[in-house]
């Protein structure tokens, strides 16, 4: 009986994650997650979990993984180049990227470039749709992307090595080592992805009649991470996460005669975390030091570059208390000090403090409520009071209803406030109200979730030309976004034949309130799909991405659009069953040789190939 209850509870929990393409064999192990609040406070929202096996089926950089497997829309300045997102019709700085519980969006421009992140540096990646500013702070308006290094405490010594080689001299190495026992856990990883990236532009010729190709598009993304966990005793755990990355990229040319430029950026992140679990009280203390920098060479033939650097110290104290059997509360104190300096925005220190109160009520096994409120304090601008209200109710084992209402924000960045010239120190944060209703249906091996949402954003920051022709940011615009997201997953096996299918569909309307025009680079429709089949040593998969057309101009000129496109990849791998796993794989990307681009004059490659070797030992 109790076992049954426990199982029900467990399956309810699992329901929250629409788990995509799990490995056919799931090992049971004790895993300590890096972000305690994630699971606790996301029951009323839609979460897509991408695990190791699905990460391995995609190209190395995070853009590809999320583009082919989530509802997030990507805009890329060519393959491997700057890649920014629009989630639920919001802007690039309104999706927060969370590394082990810490918001890592750039302090300088507010967004994250998804082509500077190697997906394989993480054990799992979660995509949570909807507001999350109460817990994750600035930028969690459209949604959040969570990069997790989870530590496991069991006796193991695992190594995994992934090598790949593909078209355009694309080379990738990823090595991960896990060493752990019941007291210690260590994870060390290294990755390097590079490409000369000189792919041909399909059906494009210059005036001399020569085939055009991608020029000055070479990239090299390198990352190193080391994570340690130590169980002092059964109540106390100490964890340390450390990551360094460097991306050295040239910027691809629109026309061959343009001046070549180059962009180098890197970061270093260190996080110490202490977890105390005492009967009814929990303590979580985090201190992080995050360094990010960039160098921009406007002309690669010259040594001169402009640069920007920020150093942030983040401390977070989270005290939890099991008030009643059904009610748990948390108080979170947060202090953040950032020092930013560079050629374009002088030298400024910004201090932010915030207090948040979170509560979770587990009425019964079917019904859970969440509540959160947060207020940020600083001396630069006024911050709104943020809140989040959520509820999840499982009517039966087939149907779960979720409701969420939240207020979120995005604070002005260093560039917005201090850019010389044009920075505007009188800016307010962008703020938004958001409401969503989610329906999750589970039937046998099928999970189907549908979420409808409405977001009202005001004080949207936009750089507009001001006095003397100097562009400056203003809190000018209001945007209303609404839409629906559908996520479907199915998995089954018939004897030794394993099948799985996943699909997502996003319908998005995001309009400027004043002009009633759709925001540019927000597609009305985006669809992704993946099917996989495995039989003993062989597995085959097919995935596709469909992006509907987008306007490229604010006036929605119907002639100035990026056409819709559908791109497909297929892959096959064979496990030689040598060592614990010895997979040899081959992928054909853009298998139908589709001519497409996500940004004007930035063609993407045609059919190209990739082969890989994954060793586990």
């Amino acid at each position, binding site marked *: 009986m109790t076992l049954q209850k426990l199982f029900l509870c467990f399956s309810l929990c699992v329901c929250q994650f629409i788990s995509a393409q799990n490995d056919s064999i799931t090992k049971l192990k004790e895993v300590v997650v890096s972000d305690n609040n994630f699971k606790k406070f996301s029951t009323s929202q839609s979460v897509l979990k991408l695990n190791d096996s699905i990460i391995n089926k995609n190209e190395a950089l995070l853009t590809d993984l999320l583009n082919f497997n989530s509802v997030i829309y990507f805009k890329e300045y060519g393959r491997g180049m700057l890649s920014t997102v629009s989630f639920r019709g919001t802007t690039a700085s309104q999706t927060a990227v969370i590394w082990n519980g810490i918001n890592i969006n750039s302090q300088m421009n507010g967004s994250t470039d998804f082509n500077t992140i190697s997906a394989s540096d993480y054990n799992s990646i979660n995509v949570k749709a909807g507001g999350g500013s109460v817990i994750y702070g600035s930028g969690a308006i459209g949604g959040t992307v969570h990069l997790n290094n989870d530590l496991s405490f069991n006796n193991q010594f695992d190594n995994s090595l992934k090598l790949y080689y593909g078209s355009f001299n694309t080379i990738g190495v990823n090595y991960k080592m896990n060493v752990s026992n019941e007291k210690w856990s260590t994870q060390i990883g290294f990755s390097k992805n590079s490409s000369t990236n000189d792919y041909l532009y399909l059906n494009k010729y210059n005036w001399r009649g020569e085939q055009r190709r991608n020029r000055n598009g070479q990239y090299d993304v390198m990352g190193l991470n080391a994570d340690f966990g130590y169980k002092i005793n059964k109540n106390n755990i100490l964890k340390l996460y450390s990551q360094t990355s460097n991306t050295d990229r040239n910027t691809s040319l629109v026309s061959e*005669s343009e001046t070549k430029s180059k962009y180098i950026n890197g970061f270093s992140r260190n996080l110490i975390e202490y977890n105390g679990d005492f009967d009814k009280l929990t303590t979580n203390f985090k201190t992080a030091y995050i360094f990010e920098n960039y160098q921009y060479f*406007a002309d690669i033939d010259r040594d001169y570059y402009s640069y920007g650097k920020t150093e942030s110290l983040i401390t977070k104290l989270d005290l939890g208390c099991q008030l009643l059997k059904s009610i748990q509360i948390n108080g979170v104190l947060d202090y953040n000090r950032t020092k930013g300096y560079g050629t374009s925005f002088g030298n400024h220190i910004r201090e932010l403090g915030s207090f948040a109160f979170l509560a979770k009520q587990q009425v019964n096994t079917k019904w859970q409520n969440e509540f959160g409120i947060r207020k940020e304090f600083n001396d630069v601008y006024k911050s709104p009071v943020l809140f989040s209200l959520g509820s999840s109710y499982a009517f039966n084992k087939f149907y779960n209803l979720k409701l969420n209402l939240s207020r979120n924000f995005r604070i002005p960045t260093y560039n917005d406030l201090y850019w010389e010239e044009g920075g505007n120190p009188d800016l307010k944060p962008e703020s938004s109200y958001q409401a969503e209703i989610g329906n999750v249906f589970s039937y046998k091996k099928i999970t189907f979730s549908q979420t409808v949402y409405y977001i009202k954003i005001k004080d949207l920051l936009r750089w507009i030309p001001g006095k003397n022709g100097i562009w400056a940011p203003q809190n000018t615009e209001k945007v209303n976004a609404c839409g629906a997201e559908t996520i479907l997953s199915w998995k089954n096996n018939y004897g030794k034949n394993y099948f799985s299918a996943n699909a997502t569909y996003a319908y998005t309307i995001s309009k400027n309130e004043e002009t009633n025009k759709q925001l540019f680079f927000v597609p009305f429709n985006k669809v992704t799909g993946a099917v996989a089949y495995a039989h003993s040593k062989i597995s085959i998969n097919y995935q596709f991405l469909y992006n509907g057309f987008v306007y*490229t101009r604010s*006036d929605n000129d119907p002639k100035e659009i990026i056409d819709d496109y559908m791109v497909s990849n297929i892959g096959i791998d064979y496990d030689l069953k040598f060592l614990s796993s010895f997979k040899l794989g081959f992928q054909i990307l853009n298998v139908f040789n589709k001519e497409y681009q996500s940004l004007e004059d930035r063609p993407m490659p045609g059919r190209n190939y990739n082969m890989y070797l994954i060793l586990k030992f």
Partner: protein
Amino acid sequence: MKFSKLFLVALSISFFVSCSNDDDSNEPIGAYTHGVLILNEGGSGQGSVSYIGNDLSSFTQDVYGTVNGSDVFGKYAQSIFFDGDNAYIIAGGSNTINVVNRYTFKLIAKIDSGLKNPRYGVVKEGKAYVTNGNTYSYANPASGDTDDYIAVINLATNTVDSKIELNATANRIVLENGKLYITEPYSNDKLLVVNPSTNTLETSVNIGSSADTMEAKDGVLYVLRSPYGGRSEIVKVKLSDKTISKVTFPEALDGASNLDIYENRIFYTVETAVYAMNIIANEASVTSIVNYSSTSAYGKMYGFAVNDNRIFIADGGDFTANSKAYIYSITGTLQKELTVGVGPNGFYFNN
């Protein structure tokens, strides 16, 4: 019999061919023969060219794209200069000059090496002289303000033959009496003088900062300068001896721009208004001829010209969407409003 028929056919063909050849030499053939070319700078995307016929009825929004398909036009279309039947369209952001037939707009060639941030050009005896911003001080503090040059282009081969180093910043260029005159409004307070027959820099003329648009007439170069926070003025440089005289504008005309001389009148603009003064007047007129409405913060009067008894105004708009061009009669009656491309910045005339 058969042969004679064939002969007859051949004869008549050659007759027609020679006839049409005769026509060619008199009258230019092309869809864009009698009208106005409007250059659109472009924003995040490419620049473009729009065309309106002199009758103000035939309009093509994107002439270059219509004729040349998906060819990469280039970014930041800056200006156009002409030589014979050819138009040379400078795409500054792409270090390229597109050479097209000015009447058909068919692409002939591209000049795409030897240029670095090209700005404006003039032609003298089969050679084009194009100012190049080269590097800018924000990206090259050491020499960004002293490395501008003139690219000398052989128009028979469409290649850059040589460079004339200017040791200063350079932007607009005028050819008058065999000499080149150059202004630049941000980092240069001199009028540069270049002798194209020797490719050498001559003694420059101190005209003051913020000098931009200029035009020569009857041996005098009229330069409009409008220093920030100071009075605008027209500096008249007598080219024979480089002596200068000035017409200082009243405070109400601070920030004047777009000097254009048409039939003994100097036209100029302030914000969204157009004014004109007699070329020999010693005082500037403060009574506007036209005042159009604009919501553009940076792009007011982004392009301006007076020609054929008409006033042409381009509004830069927001630089992300197609913007507007307006055509007024010389007395200020609106004749046509057009939606052109992104950031329209200039008018050029095919007559």
